[in-house]
């Protein structure tokens, strides 16, 4: 009489993360710094996105050793990334106890056509999206949480802002439509009709939507919150900064108190250098991670 892996349990888990910061970590020590700073979860990785970008080659699921090490170090939830379409990597992460699986464009896709059928998993999934059609296709496949793709590993917020604004604007548009417009809109967006009906009825996405991909400062995190994000992922930003401890704490506080500008100013003082950013135009198109799936 106890049901595991229901939509309510999987989506509810993401609801509990709202207003929080999820940080990329590569070992137990970083995971502890993140937890101590007030992160709501950590993403266990072999390399942070900016290092993946630098290293080139094929980026895969992290060694399960790293996942185990991080799970052993903290009591907050631990997430992990699988390659897009890599059913077996996702199953392995689920078996090793990942609390959330990120089917992520940061890793090299295993399937250029299809995503994982996430409805068949007990563990919940988060997926990246640039617009509402992409978000709803992932939710249709069973994603329980959405994040903007942004452009990972760049420390440049511009793409995350573009994607968040796009999704918000499209949600508002659908919410204001009449029922007879929805089927055509479903066709135009390439999205499941039933999910558009749900948005039209409730005025919001059926799952939590976080910001990710390029958040490098406390002010960046607060910006994404003020644009309507439910929370933020910080990838390379924390542990590529000069003082990760202080930086992590500042990002957590700025996310909670995103409308307290005096506080954000104080948090930003003396933080040292943030990670070095990359201009998006200087990334050749084939190297843009956000274009890796539709």
């Amino acid at each position: 009489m106890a049901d595991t892996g229901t939509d309510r349990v999987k989506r509810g888990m993401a609801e509990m993360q709202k207003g929080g910061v999820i940080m990329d970590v590569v070992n137990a020590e970083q995971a502890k710094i993140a937890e101590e700073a007030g992160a709501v979860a950590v993403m266990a990785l072999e390399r942070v996105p900016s290092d993946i970008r630098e290293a080139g080659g094929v980026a895969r699921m992290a060694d399960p050793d790293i996942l185990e090490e991080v799970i052993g170090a903290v009591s907050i939830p631990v997430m992990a990334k699988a390659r897009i379409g890599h059913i077996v990597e996702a199953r392995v992460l689920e078996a090793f106890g990942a609390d959330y699986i990120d089917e992520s464009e940061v890793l090299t896709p295993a399937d250029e056509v299809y995503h994982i059928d996430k409805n068949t998993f007990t563990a919940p999934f988060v997926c990246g999206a640039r617009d509402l059609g992409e978000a709803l296709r992932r939710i249709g496949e069973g994603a329980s949480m959405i994040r903007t793709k942004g452009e990972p590993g760049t420390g440049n917020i511009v793409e995350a802002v573009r994607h968040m604004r796009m999704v918000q604007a499209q949600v508002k548009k659908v919410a204001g439509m009449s029922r007879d417009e929805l089927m055509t809109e479903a066709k135009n967006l390439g999205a499941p009709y039933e999910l558009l009906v749900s948005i039209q009825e409730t005025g919001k996405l059926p799952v939590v939507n976080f910001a990710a991909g390029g958040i490098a400062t406390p002010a960046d995190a607060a910006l994404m919150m003020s644009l309507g994000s439910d929370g933020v992922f910080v990838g390379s930003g924390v542990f590529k900064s000069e003082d990760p401890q202080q930086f992590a704490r500042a990002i957590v506080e700025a996310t909670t108190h995103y409308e307290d500008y005096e506080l954000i100013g104080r948090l930003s003082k003396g933080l040292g250098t943030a990670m070095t950013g990359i201009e998006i135009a200087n990334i050749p198109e084939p190297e843009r991670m956000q274009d890796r799936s539709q």
Partner: protein
Amino acid sequence: MVKIGVLALQGAVHEHAKMLESEGTSEAILVKKEEELYDLDGLVLPGGESTTMRRLIDRYGFRDPLRQFAKDGKPIFGTCAGLILLAKHIDGQQEGHLDLMDMTVKRNAFGRQKESFEAELDAKGIARDLAAVFIRAPLITEVGDSVDVLAYHQGEIVAAQQGSLLTCSFHPELTDDHRFHHYFVDMVKNSKKAIV
């Protein structure tokens, strides 16, 4: 009309606010700062990550005002992470967070997220066949004499009350079942009458 705050540092804040507002007799206020506590009649500590909430409580000297709120006899309802914040004793930790309810709790007592589940249960004096969603949920492993156990799941304690403090390890705010919130709003109304 009673005013009920929802601690809005992190977690499922809006779900609680929506539940409270839908009662029609309570107004929900999101609370991020100490001064926002003052004219409230009751407070909800929502689900989320208890370690995150504790960090944010400490950084702004929020702990003492929250404890004082409880000492003034104003009702507090803690769900999941909120239950952990209320407990005097936490398994494996030196001390409790707000240190208010005479009980011992075990965090993530059912295991990791894939073990999260939903079930129906009976809550004494509140509801039968209540829809309960458990997400990386804690359990109450021991209670003091002044604590009234309200609900069990498979023999383990999952809801309790000690005077004006109400708690459950599951998430009524994620369901359409308003009975737990209704019970709390009644507690707040009664306490307001008593305080006035």
